[in-house]
């Protein structure tokens, strides 16, 4: 198991992703175990355009960052989102 290896792939989960996972589970109304770094609009049923707004706002609220237009367009999966946030922290 990795220790504190932020942004690690594979079995290790970055602390940022752990928070993203928790927030996404709340926004989409699913269990945290159903959310993985690969989760995307294609794999999460309730991830539509309105839920996307909620997700972005909830993340901004939690991390105190502003996600730019480019970030949002590139958000292909929750793992990508966590990486984009890490770059701003």
């Amino acid at each position, binding site marked *: 198991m990795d220790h504190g290896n932020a942004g690690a792939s594979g079995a290790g989960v970055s602390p940022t992703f752990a928070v993203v996972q928790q*927030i996404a589970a*709340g926004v989409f109304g699913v269990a945290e175990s159903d959310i993985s770094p690969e989760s995307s609009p294609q794999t999460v049923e309730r991830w539509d*355009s*309105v839920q*996307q*707004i*909620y997700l*972005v*706002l*909830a993340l*901004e*609220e*939690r991390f105190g960052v*502003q996600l*730019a*237009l*480019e970030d*949002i*367009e590139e958000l292909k999966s929750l793992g990508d989102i966590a990486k984009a946030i890490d770059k701003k922290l």
Partner: protein
Amino acid sequence: MTHRDSIDKLLEHGKLAEAFQTLADAWNREPSLNAAQYVIAKYERHRAELDLVTCRLAILRSVTVEPLVPLLRAAAYVNGIDLDVRVSDFDTYATEMLDPGSALYEFQPRVVLLALNTASVAPPLWAPSDDSESGLRAVADDTVARLTSLIQAFRNNSQADLIFHLLDSPDLTTRGSLESHADFGQRAAIESVNERLAAVARGMRGVHPLDYDALVARHGRRDWFDEGKWEQFRLPATAPNLRHIVDEWLRFIHPVIGAVVKVAVVDLDDTLWKGIVGEDGFARLKMGADPPGTPYRALQRALLALRERGVVLAVSSKNDEADALEVLEKHPDMLVRPAHFAAMRINWESKAENIRSIAGELNIGLDAIAFIDDNPVERAEVRAMLPQVRVLDLPPDPSKFARIVLENPFFQRVAPASVEDRQRTQFYKEQAQRATILASVGSKEEFYRSLGQVADIAAANDLTLGRVAQLTLKTNQFNLTTRRYSEADVARFMSDPKRKLLTIKVSDRLGDNGIVGAAITEDDGDACRLDTFLLSCRVIGRGIETAFIAYIADQARLRGKSRLVGMFCPTAKNELAKHFYEDHGFRRIADDADGSLWELGLATSDLKAPEWITVTPAPAVPA
């Protein structure tokens, strides 16, 4: 959101009031989207046990409001309002307003909110490609014409109140530093649209323009908006600013539905002035135009502004009365004086006790009172003892006091103060004198006779229509049906020949109470149906209610009706009116889910005004 565990625990133990107070405090500390979902879930689960005002709200929009809705519902719940919200599809506001059969009107909203911004509703004003005077004028005229026709259609199609955003100005204009060189530049064009739309609204009932540009400016124009999220999501503001939009909406929704307080009870020491009169002494108190008196002066000015809106002021202070009165009467820097207060309790009783006593003297419910005190211990005591009272959370920094008062949605009004509102302090003082006389004379009847009361009953007209709507919105205690009507509703009733709208004005030798009651009836075959019958508590118990119903019965008889029929719809607050029908000879003929139905046979009834009340105009006698 913190405290979730303790809230759940309190709920488990059935400590409802404490749980929801903790929830409200947690929400006020952290009004986030995440917290909103939690607040909504708790209120939805317990709404039946809580005394909430319900309101159907339709939101029409040209911007994304989805993230605003949970924030709005949570903030409204915490203020005791259960909002049933319907959001229309994107940019369908025009068709929804124009089509009388639209889903908007089918929803039968009490309040409609039209959420717009300049970027979506008038893009050529937001980012002009033609910023010549003629180009801007053409767009401005077109925008005014378009929105005016929608508002007019809405007014014809619905009785609901309409709150609509005026236009906002961008932070940068195309002309930049040359902006003021143009006779009619971009900002001037936007201002001209706003002025004209506000004028349209002033000419209609129940249409309330919201100065969206002032809201944006208040919170910083440059950081209000995030271009990226506007382009991507049509989100009208950045995440932290969403809460400010919601708060501004509530400042309109509260007064529109009558969720306001009537009386502000204020502390004196370290609230109205800096210092403690009993310790520092008269000469060392500060409330002048120089620091450190300025914040206290600002609060005094804010209180006088509330008074202009029709809010009644009262004092509760722990002091020796003579000391505090000397400051109120004689200190040269004081702006508020004893004459501004309808009631004063300057003594060593608890504040809760004093507030209860003020409520009794002014004859108003505890939920119509707000409490303003710098001392967190006093506030906590009042909160615990009198949970219905709205306790304002003053921060330790006194320079924020005035702002907290002026921002509070419970102190907002959407109609200018009526003549009755302006005179209310005087009414309450006369009321106190009446109570003193009652205590000194032998019998109640003797007291009534000594008052020399005159009841002036008249059909509602354009001048009194606003007061009728206000009474239906604000009267909780002596109100048989508690049906709430907007000015637009009242105006519609007035044009219906089957309906009669009456107002009753009461004066006596101590003063003029103004319009203190209203009734709405509807003729239906051989019956006259009482839709609304209400009186301000100030005049209850002096025979006025009998004079009023007797007049209505006489008039119905003159119109050939044989029965007077009315409902009693019980609420948490109208116990006072419970026995009204029975006491006036009505017979209970049916019960249903809403209440009981009562009837008076007009042929046999001998209902008449008490002899100690002079009714004008004198009842007509059939020829």
